[in-house]
């Protein structure tokens, strides 16, 4: 019993320290590390499989694995009869592998690991240094825009199936549409650049389909950079990986929860949110607060000035909570204050 008390105290001390931590700074270093890992890991004989729930782009020589979107597009290149055969089972086991990877970090794959996300964050940092303002969507257009990623996700599943099958008696889709999302994904064009490989930046004049798709790819790449400069995490609103992940985010081990009764709806969480989620501030009833654009960067938890209002949990154990103390420690920079603590006037 006594030793158990000591352990509990010890854990509480660690938790207390963690609540005061600057997670954003930690996140910066984790992102740097995972960026190097996902972009150059392959050169160090690291291989993490072909169901990685983030943009580990195989077009990049140094990638240590394969993004699950490409595996899924390939895996669904099946006729209906194949889908219910052993080949379908292969797709299914691949999918389970993806889930297995995913549930460990939940949507923190976006906030901490995704190399495209990291790139956007760096572009944001650059913009902040220069002092150019960011833009925000107004809430009406935001509600519309966030649906695009689901449309892309559906297309990404439907097009490969449409290549092997005939929908509504129409002719199967042209094979030039293979891996349709990869053809327009900015990851394919940008990440190989890290290995000094510019071969993905091209426009394919073979036929109309390749011309359209490769042109779209280049345009989206350009938009990626321009957008990221104007708007924090611009591309993430359209990312089908984010959509796919969100469908399963409830079973994630890493969780973000909210205790609505402690919430004053001050909106601090919404203010600092890179993807501008309003629900995090306005929703006072849901316990499980991960919304579909959330990337689990936990900036909201840092910005929340109420004790135990927002919590990061592993299973049900809190590992990082919003606290008043933590808030002030992170937000007050002592060198900004002209505090004269030695000042001693008893007027």
């Amino acid at each position, binding site marked *: 019993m006594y030793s158990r008390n000591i352990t509990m105290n010890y854990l509480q001390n660690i938790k207390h320290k963690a609540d005061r931590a600057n997670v954003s700074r930690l996140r910066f270093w984790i992102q740097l590390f995972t960026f190097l890992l996902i972009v150059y890991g392959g050169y160090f004989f690291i291989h993490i499989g072909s169901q990685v729930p983030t943009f580990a782009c195989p077009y990049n020589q140094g990638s240590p694995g394969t993004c699950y979107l490409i595996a899924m597009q390939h895996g669904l290149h099946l006729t209906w009869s194949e889908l219910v055969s052993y080949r379908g089972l292969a797709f299914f086991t691949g999918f389970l592998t993806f889930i297995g990877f995913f549930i460990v970090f939940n949507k923190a794959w976006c906030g901490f690991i995704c190399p495209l996300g990291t790139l956007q964050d760096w572009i944001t940092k650059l913009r902040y240094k220069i002092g150019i303002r960011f833009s925000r969507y107004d809430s009406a257009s935001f509600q519309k825009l966030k649906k695009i990623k689901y449309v892309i996700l559906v297309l990404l599943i439907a097009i490969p199936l449409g290549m092997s099958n005939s929908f509504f008696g129409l002719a199967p889709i042209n094979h030039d549409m293979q891996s349709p999302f990869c053809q327009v994904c900015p990851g394919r064009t940008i990440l190989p650049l890290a290995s000094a490989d510019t071969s993905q930046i091209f426009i394919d004049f073979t036929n109309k389909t390749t011309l359209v798709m490769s042109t779209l790819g280049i345009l989206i790449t350009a938009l990626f950079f321009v957008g990221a400069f104007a708007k924090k995490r611009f591309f993430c609103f359209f990312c089908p990986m984010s959509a796919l992940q969100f469908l399963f985010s409830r079973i994630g081990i890493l969780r973000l929860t909210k205790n609505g009764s402690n919430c*004053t*709806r001050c*909106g601090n969480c919404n203010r600092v949110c890179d993807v501008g989620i309003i629900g995090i501030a306005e929703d006072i009833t849901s316990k499980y607060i991960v919304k579909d654009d959330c990337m689990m960067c936990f900036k909201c938890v840092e910005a929340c000035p109420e004790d135990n209002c927002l919590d990061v949990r592993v299973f049900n154990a809190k590992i990082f909570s919003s606290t*008043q103390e933590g808030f002030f420690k992170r937000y*007050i920079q002592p060198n*900004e204050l002209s505090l004269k603590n030695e000042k001693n006037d008893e007027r």
Partner: protein
Amino acid sequence: MKKMMKDNQQTDRFQRVVKAASIHYDMEIGKTMAAITDDFPDNPAAMKYFYEKHRNLIRNDSNGKLPSKKTIATLCIHVPVELILAVGAIPVRSCAGAFTTEQLGAEFLPAKSCPMVKSTLGAISYNLLHGKVQPDLIINPATCDQKKKLGEINEEISEKFYLLEMPSTKDSEESREYWLQTVFKLIRKLESVTGNKLTAKSLKRAIQEVAHAQRLYRKFNHIRTSAPVILGKDALLVTNAFFFDDLESWSFHLNLLNEELENRMKTGFRVVNERAPRILLTGSPSVFPNMKMPLLVEELGGFIVSEEFCSSSRMLWDTVAVDEWHLYDMIPALADRYLKPSTCPNFSPNTDRIRKLLSAIEEYKIDGVVCQTFTGCQLYDMETRIIAKAMEQAGIQTLFVETDYSPEDIGQLTTRVEAFLHSLKHNRKKQLI
């Protein structure tokens, strides 16, 4: 010639009124201060600073303001003080609590107006604000109907008034956008009045300084809610000093007080019996020297753990969170802080107030709620019904009182408060058995 004579008479009358009112006001302060300091033992030593501040409330040069700076009066919690500090001016919250100035204000306003509005207008009209300061600008947020019209009534001072437009709801994106535009307009006004430009550096510093004060206030709140080491009447003076005190010296002295109270916590020193009923005050705000209700509750053996007043917690609790320390992000962050978390009843719906009360009741282990409404304060009066319903559902005993600044109803209130506290104690005993 006739006009000149009239003017002379006016000023003559004005001078006489100011002189007489100053004496009365000072006496009123003296009386309240005597009740606060002399009727209770165990006042913290660090409270001396706050007592002195209030004792010298309307005596000139008592507040140590630098005369070279512009003074800007604010009439509600919705005025971003950070902006005023950032343009190098002194913010003075000028909502008044004196019966003396209420009587002066009655000359301008309908009889059924709220005493705070009357008192405030009286104090402004007759130069009886804190430290007899004469503000260069009076920022008047369009919150309740009575405050809204304040600037139009006395022509002699109306040019100093600046109406800060407010949305009547805070939940919609449209209201948020409208409020942000209002804040931008206010910045331009402040810049033109002070002649200083708002810079990212000055605003960041102001935000940080206010945040530092808030950090100390929250610590103070944590201390007083976790152990009865300071009475509510003292706590109210601390927050009331924030109205007019220099921010830096307020923070400094609050820090001293916190240290003393922490010491009391460690040594087990208590100002009231641990069994004293724990009271939460809410409703129309008690502003010094109108300490009628808080004093009554504590003189009769209650312990005020916390207040949900715009003169205390609502003014100081909520914080500014900035993501990028440039003006383009700081200003909207500031605007949000003064709109979104506010539980002022001028917003509809105002469910956040009920939620805040309920969470305070649970967190601070409140035994009973005292909800005061000033005669003529319609919004609080209307919300009384909503609160009554919520408190009934939560099973919390609540005392609703309607009162004003006059000392006439003390006798009747004493009986009611006494009965209320008695029934709280009784209920608690029943629970224990």
